[in-house]
């Protein structure tokens, strides 16, 4: 099976009783334009974790354990469930159970605000065979991924997605979602994003004193 077929097989089973969303999809992998070596990032509801693991193993995915992603200094704070990685026929599934990001000291994994966690499941949308984050949750996730996980480095594909989504969603919705993460920095963040000043974002955040 090619990668898309592998995922469709998994999604067909998950869509019945396991809550999940595909994260990012920055490289249009699910449209079939695969980039070699990329993982698929997926978020599974923590309460469905055991069902999910049972299912992937049944479908022949092997558990990679901590190989390739774990660092001994990692800490999963505030009851964040440790991630999993599964592999089948060269395709790697990177599985999270809460929407998380790194803390600014890099090695701690922190869950985003509860309002965002709840919104993921209340507002997820189905496109084709798969569930994705809603537009406002996706933009929050891409921003936190770029700032915290990648320390200010945004991939071009994600910048395009953020710009597209910022024009699509209501400004109030954006601020409602982003404020629990960035607090008083939210306005400055928004202004830097709409002017595509991604290179200034990380330093602006770290040096922000308006609070």
């Amino acid at each position, binding site marked *: 099976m090619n990668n898309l077929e592998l995922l469709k097989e998994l999604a067909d089973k998950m869509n019945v009783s396991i809550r999940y969303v595909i994260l990012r999809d920055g490289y249009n992998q699910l449209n079939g334009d695969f980039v070699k070596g990329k993982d698929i990032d997926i978020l599974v509801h923590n309460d469905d974790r055991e069902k999910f693991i049972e299912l992937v193993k049944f479908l022949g995915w092997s558990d990679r354990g901590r190989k390739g992603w774990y660092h001994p200094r990692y800490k999963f704070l505030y009851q964040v469930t440790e991630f999993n990685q599964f592999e089948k026929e060269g395709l790697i599934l990177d599985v999270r159970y809460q929407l998380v*990001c790194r803390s600014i000291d890099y090695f701690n994994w922190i869950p*985003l605000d*509860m309002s965002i966690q709840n919104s993921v499941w209340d507002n997820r949308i189905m496109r084709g065979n798969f569930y994705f984050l809603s537009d406002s949750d996706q933009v929050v996730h891409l921003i*936190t991924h770029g700032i915290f996980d990648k320390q200010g480095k945004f991939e071009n594909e994600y910048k395009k997605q953020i710009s597209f989504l910022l024009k699509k969603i209501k400004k109030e919705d954006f601020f409602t979602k982003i404020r629990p993460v960035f*607090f008083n920095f939210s306005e400055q963040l928004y202004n830097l994003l709409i002017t595509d000043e991604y290179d200034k974002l990380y330093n602006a*955040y770290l040096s922000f*004193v*308006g609070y």
Partner: protein
Amino acid sequence: MNMINCIMHIYLLWGIKMSNPGVKVLSKKKINSEMFILEDNIGEAIHLHYGKTRFDFSIKDFLEFYNVTKKTSFELVSNEIFRYLDKMDPTFVNMFSQYIYDIERIFLDKIKLGDIICQTDIIKGRKIYKKLTFSRVLKFLKGDTKDYLNYNQENHPFQTNEERLTSVLNIIKEKGYPNNGNYIILFNNQNFVRDGQHRAACLCFLYGNIEVPVIRVCFKHPELVNIKIESRFKNFMKRLVKFVKRKLFN
């Protein structure tokens, strides 16, 4: 501090779920068996945790709180002592802050640079103290750079060792010593340098074994802060006991 203008929210920590990933820990220590933690939560607030209580401040309010707390804590000592403490490096004062109440007097003294003693190395857990001429800082200034560049300095996170030393040397050349009341500090009747090894080394490099003014901080109970030189034999026995314990109770 104007309590009406100062916004302080006191939270009990049970059940509070943190959501701010942008947290920098500014300070963390145990005080009276409770954890004291100071955090900068970017965009949100400065959090001061003590045990299960949390205080939230804006940056402006926190700086005001800091000034009031500093003034209050120094009021525990005499005005004379406060006059000297206020001029010292706050990081250094923090290191012996739990003994501030025990300070008996602080006074200006004089010492020849060659009589100053500093820590030069740590060998198998034992701190080695020698005269200033053996200081890694002075050796660096004279061209022997290896020890100093490899030394892990703790209190200047945004400067390399070399940058820090260059800065100290330039200040002494341009503004002299002591600049702005920043004296080299010794405790009690010991000549171990407690703060100011860089200044002492720079002065020695520039002017040789001259006599310089220093501050002596004298404590009612000197044994609380005095450096005790451990004999090699005692250090060896300590390490032997540790080794045997590890093997027996592994």
